[in-house]
């Protein structure tokens, strides 16, 4: 109970700092997610029908995810320096797989009879994609975006280790100063607000998903 009270106290005393770091964290995540979503969805559409390209893309994206986060972040330092940049590039690479996989799976799952009907009515390839296949794959794609967002929100805590911003700062400071006053509280604060941010983002994406999904396929 003492721990909780002192945590609450710490948060109360540092609200503006926490808010600033949270916004910083959110900005990194949203920026990465936007680019990653567009990239992965477009890539998914492009390779869905091409056997080899599909395997290669999915395989590569999967392998990227297995590279230890700190290592992946650090790899880009010689190329883009320190700060948010290397973190964003690494996060972008992580974000691809869930979205790419879901885009491909979502498109694969569209009933071929529907596509045949669309083609038989005189819809060209592009129109079929935009009017029929993507809207039908959309719930699955959104689900992929949500998973990816959760993932990125968590991993973005490491950005501080390469000179970037975000809530990871609290965790880092807390861990490197263990034993000093408020070190535990710092770790908890960073963790707690990353979780809260993840939940909020997921809720928002969920709402967007519902709004943009046709009632006919909910």
């Amino acid at each position, binding site marked *: 109970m003492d721990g909780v009270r002192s945590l609450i106290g710490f948060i109360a005393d540092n609200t503006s700092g926490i808010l600033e770091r949270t916004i910083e964290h959110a900005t990194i995540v949203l920026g990465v997610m936007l680019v990653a979503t567009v990239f992965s969805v477009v890539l998914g559409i492009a390779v869905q029908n091409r056997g080899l390209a599909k395997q290669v893309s999915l395989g590569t994206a999967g392998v990227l995810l297995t590279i230890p986060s700190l290592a992946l972040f650090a790899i880009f330092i010689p190329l883009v320096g320190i700060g948010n940049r290397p973190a964003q590039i690494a996060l972008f690479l992580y974000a691809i797989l869930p979205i790419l996989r879901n885009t491909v799976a979502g498109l694969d799952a569209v009933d071929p009879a529907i596509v045949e*009907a669309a083609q038989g009515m005189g819809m060209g390839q592009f129109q079929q994609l935009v009017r029929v296949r993507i809207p039908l794959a959309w719930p699955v794609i959104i689900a992929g975006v949500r998973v990816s967002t959760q993932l990125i929100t968590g991993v973005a805590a490491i950005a501080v280790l390469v000179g970037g911003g975000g809530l990871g700062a609290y965790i880092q400071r807390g861990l490197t100063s263990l034993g000093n006053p408020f070190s535990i509280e710092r770790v908890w604060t960073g963790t707690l607000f990353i979780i809260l941010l993840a939940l909020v983002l997921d809720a928002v994406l969920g709402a967007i998903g519902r709004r943009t999904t046709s009632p*006919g396929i909910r």
Partner: protein
Amino acid sequence: MSETTSTPQVGAAGMVSDRDPTDAPVMIHLDGVEKVYTPGAAPAVEKLTLDVHKGEILVLVGPSGCGKSTTLRLINRMIEPTAGRIIFDDEDVTDIDANELRRRIGYVIQRIGLFPHQTIAENIGTVPRLLGWDAERTRKRSDELLDLVGLEPGIYRDRYPKELSGGQAQRVGVARALAADPPVMLMDEPFGAVDPITRDRLQNEFLRLQAEVQKTIVFVTHDIDEAVKMGDRIAILRERSVVAQLDTPARILSYPVDDFVDDFIGSGSTLKGLHFERVSGLQIPEYPVVRRDTPREEAGRILDMSDFRWLLMLDERGRPARWLNETHLADTSRPLHEVGPVVRAMVERNATLHDALEAMITSSAGQAVIVHRDGTYVGVVQIELLTEVIGRMRREARKHYEELEATQAAEQRAAGA
């Protein structure tokens, strides 16, 4: 051809058509159309030349794998031909933009393929939207078509496909195909995915619809009964879509040209052929008829002098009441109008011979009475009459084919000379 009334009758048994479908102009001409998938191997569709006439339903029917679906899809170039030309309403469409061609052709498939993420109205409006119609016109047309296929627009226009039954969904499928009022419809086993009762209803409704809209339709099925019911002409296809016989259902049933066709039609072809003639076309001989007040002795004399075993007694309004045979006449304990089986087997003049046969089988006298709409007596039909008709149909069909062969032989000689 027998004399039949001029308005075609639609019944559950099938459509009796009185005009020759080949009199109308040619709407689709397939000229040596071929599809080869693997060069060197046998083609899926072998150099097919076929005419589809305006306003007819041409059914492509054949065993599984014969290429009938492939042939259908060559027409709207869902499958591109590897040889031959496709002439659509006098225009060679083999090389034009395929999408543009398909917007002029309605396409109905077995699995329907409604867009689940769109409302029924939006589904129906797909091709109009592709063609650039404005929202108001599309909406009106959508409602019009929902009405046409028997779905109340107010209820169904804003529903989603997942809320529909199979039968309703296929009706929407048909409505969607008709939306831009295409002159031609291609239908690939459209009623295959529903239960037999619903299928029967959908078939009947579709025939009624066709009587109104008179589209040119190419219809694929593997079911010969459906082909006979739906088709103005039927093409029975062999492997690689080679045409075994292409003719009206009546003629094919009367005269299958070879064993393949005969086997494919299966047993019961004669029975099926009875759908295509009407009672009104029969030459009915005189039949011995008495009334309630006819004295017993006179009744007996009438029966003796006729060739028939049963006397027909009419009631005071001239409607058939009872059958009487010698035994009934001899039974003096009761008046004549109280003996003998009650007449139940009655058919109207525009009924088919198939209906007449069905009625005959249920009759104690083995005969059916022909009546007017008000129930008054016209005549009596026996099985011998049907046998005569069947014989005549066969002879006429054979003569037709013999004449056809003679003409073709003459043409070949002229070409060779």
